[in-house]
């Protein structure tokens, strides 16, 4: 097989594995105060923002990288990374989409992101983050009409400093754990959403993340604020090119729901998982946290995790307002040498708070999957309840599936119920499907989709179809 054929062969496995040759501006390698000043300077940030970053950096110097997770990884040399990488043509921000680098637009076309205004047909507003910089936001007109702010983080820092100042770091403070603090110090861009009082966002908001340049870490920051009585559904998709070295992705996502507001956050995460021998791939160490600040507020996380060499994240809800609701629906699939340690935290502080956790883990090949979750009902959280269900499916005896729930109940009027099972696909079900003419892989796909149904149902239409396909693709070659 010549190299070209090999390349094509590779692409079949991971269809987003192309790189785009676009000239990049990079910060100097390494992590120090000068690099942070460089980032802040190139983004023309106000002084308070630089202060925020420096405060985080000083704190970071005192922190140690955590080491309690199940999947271990070789030590990351934080001085050997580029903390800022932007497509060169971004230096003078284009006024409209037509001015964008055509190569960039092509990249997005390959990804299937409807960047152009024709996207209107799909009715999804998109903010695309390329390496670390937000490239374009579509559908601005329609959203502005409702008073919704949907823009890149850098733009929000310039144009809406009062909102950013008030909420940035209010859910994930700069004093948080190592990776969150690292992000606070060096984050480059991300999405910002503000839904004004009483507005139901008329369309799904969506972000695509892509890591393109090599030796860069991606540190984006997302902040979503739903004001009183508002509603928003937000989608996030991620891809990265295939590279032999491991790349770090340490994003922070903060959600804030005020009185009667609802935020639905869906992720289809398809970072490059490394090849079948476990070489390369993304380290996905993301901090996602939602705060139900107001009464009757609701935050719901839905995630489909199929990519990344190592996934290590716990989208959490802090249920502070009375009667608030937190939900977590997750499918995590690991194949080959992928490793995942994921789950959620539900922290009940307010009265009558409710939370629900549905987690489905599937491991195949040589992979290792851990569900780790915390349910903590505070002594003041009267009449609260939690229901947790975490099921694992194993394919083959080279992989592992683990469940590590932490359950703390300090309130006698509250109830916690937890269930977990681990099993394999039943021979009878497989036999039944094959008898009806499905080949073994199709049969497994069908059964797995059934296993995941409860979570897939939670995804918005367009995403559900994509996710269903992804589930099938991720498990290819794991049967037999």
């Amino acid at each position, binding site marked *: 097989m010549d190299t070209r054929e090999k390349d094509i062969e590779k692409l079949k496995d991971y269809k987003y594995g192309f790189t785009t040759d676009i000239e990049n501006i990079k910060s100097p390698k390494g992590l120090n105060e000068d690099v942070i000043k460089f980032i802040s300077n190139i983004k023309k940030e106000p002084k308070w923002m630089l202060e925020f970053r420096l405060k985080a950096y000083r704190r970071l110097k005192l922190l140690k990288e955590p080491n309690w997770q199940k999947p271990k990884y070789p030590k990351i040399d934080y001085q050997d990374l580029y903390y800022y990488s932007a497509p060169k043509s971004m230096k003078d921000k284009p006024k409209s989409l037509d001015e964008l680098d055509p190569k960039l637009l092509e990249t997005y076309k390959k990804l299937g992101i409807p960047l152009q205004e024709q996207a209107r047909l799909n009715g999804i507003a998109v903010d695309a983050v390329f390496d670390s910089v937000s490239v374009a936001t579509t559908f601005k007109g329609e959203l502005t009409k409702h008073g919704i702010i949907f823009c890149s983080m850098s733009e929000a820092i310039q144009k809406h400093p009062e909102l950013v100042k008030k909420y940035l770091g209010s859910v994930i403070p700069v004093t948080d754990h190592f990776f969150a603090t690292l992000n606070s110090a060096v984050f480059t861009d991300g999405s910002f959403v503000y839904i004004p009082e009483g507005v139901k966002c008329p369309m799904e908001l969506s972000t695509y993340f892509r890591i393109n340049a090599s030796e860069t870490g991606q540190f984006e920051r997302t902040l979503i604020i739903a004001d009183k009585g508002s509603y928003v559904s937000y989608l996030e998709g991620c891809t990265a090119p295939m590279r032999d070295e491991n790349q770090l992705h340490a994003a922070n996502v903060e959600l804030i729901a005020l009185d009667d507001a609802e935020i639905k956050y869906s992720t289809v995460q398809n970072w490059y998982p490394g090849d079948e021998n476990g070489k390369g791939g993304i380290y996905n160490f993301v901090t996602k946290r939602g705060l139900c600040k107001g009464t009757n507020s609701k935050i719901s996380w839905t995630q489909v995790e199929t990519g990344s060499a190592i996934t290590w994240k716990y989208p959490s809800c802090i249920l502070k307002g009375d009667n608030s609701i937190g939900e977590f629906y997750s499918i995590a699939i690991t194949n080959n040498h992928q490793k995942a340690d994921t789950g959620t935290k539900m922290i009940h502080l307010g009265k009558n708070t409710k939370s629900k956790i549905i987690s489905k883990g599937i491991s195949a090949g040589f992979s290792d999957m851990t569900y780790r979750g915390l349910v903590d009902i505070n002594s003041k959280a009267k009449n609260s309840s939690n229901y947790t269900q975490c099921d694992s499916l194993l394919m083959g005896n080279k992989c592992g599936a683990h469940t590590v729930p932490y*359950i703390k109940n300090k*309130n006698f009027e509250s*109830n916690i*119920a937890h269930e977990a099972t681990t099993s394999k696909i039943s021979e009878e079900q497989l036999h039944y499907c094959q008898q009806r003419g499905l080949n073994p892989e199709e049969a497994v796909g069908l059964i797995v989709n059934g296993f995941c149904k409860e979570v897939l149902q939670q995804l918005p239409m367009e995403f559900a179809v994509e996710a269903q396909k992804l589930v099938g693709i991720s498990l290819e070659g794991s049967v037999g």
Partner: protein
Amino acid sequence: MNEQLQLDFDKIVKTLKISENEIRSKKIFLKKFIDNGFPNRKQENWKFLDISQIIKKKIIDLSFFYDYSLPNKIDPTIFVDGLEHNKIIFINGRIEKIDFSYEDKNQIEINDEIGKNFILNYENSLIDLNNAFTNKVFKILVKKNYSLKKPLIIYHSTNDKIKSKNINLSLNFELEENSSMRLIDYFIDNTDTSFVNILYNFNLKRYSILKNYKLDKFRNNNLKYSFNNIEQDDNSISETFIMSAGSDYFKNELNCNLNGEYSSAFINGVFSLKENQQHEIRSTINHLVENTKSYQLIKSVLGKNSKSVYQGRIFVNSKAQKTDGYQLSKAILLDETSEFNAKPELEIYADDVKCSHGSASGSLNEDSIFYLMSRGLSYQQSKELLINGFLLDVVEKITDPEIKNLIKSIIGLKE
């Protein structure tokens, strides 16, 4: 504390008649313990209840010395009535009596094995402490095809000679092929604020059966830690029942290695706690080969200011296909100050397995109370009836009818 440890250690060694070699091995354990100290919340295993803090708070001037050369008087009133049994009596951590009068003397061997510390290789500084300070290690061997006719009751009692002491004791059991033993650990304390550290090792050969009942029922202010290590060959069965209600602090830790096919382990536990009691059960079941089985049921009833913790871990090796593992923990919280923590953990590397766990906690069901009250019971009676029913469920799991009745009468549960 370290100086105190060293001084007490030297004093103890002087009273014991042991060889240079033994002293050297004890010194290694002492050094390990001095290096690590009492476990604290930084260790995952001690996250929920931090023993170093609890000891600091409850025991002032903890001392590690006790003169084991002086005998204590046995108080016969502590003996269990209505059940003929063999006895091992510990008073203040000193073995006062070993009595197997109901058994065939040729079928049981008892040896003092202080020289051969059975070394358990766990990262656990309390085991190091135990190995460093134990004054006697008896090995009790039950020979092939012999079943003990009567249960063995081990009395753990303290008298007023000790206060603020650390007591360490350990026993080693071996059950040869096709033998069986029923073992009751019975705790009666007359003094308070001591820290008792118990280490048992069980070696179960093929087709042997061990039933261990730990009864900590009478209210006392002592702190206790017990570690059971159980090694199981094929077709062996271990059954452990834990009644955790008396001491201020009690942590029962069980490590069970299912090394042989068709071996099985059962753990049932009851917490019934009141003011300021903090108890914990932590179990680790290692399914290492095919066709092994484990079952765990833990129930808690928690009164004012009490806290119970259940940490259960099922580990399934990649070779251990056809494993059947089950864990269930339930808790009733009676007061706004009670707290229940659970960490039911599954770690699975084989695919053809059936493993599940469940955990539920909450208050007493008001509807059930209403139902009973509408039938003429008072509020208090209804509550008691419901709680008894809840706990009886676990006691009913005991497979030995004689001991089941004994336990029912001890804890005052009626059918």
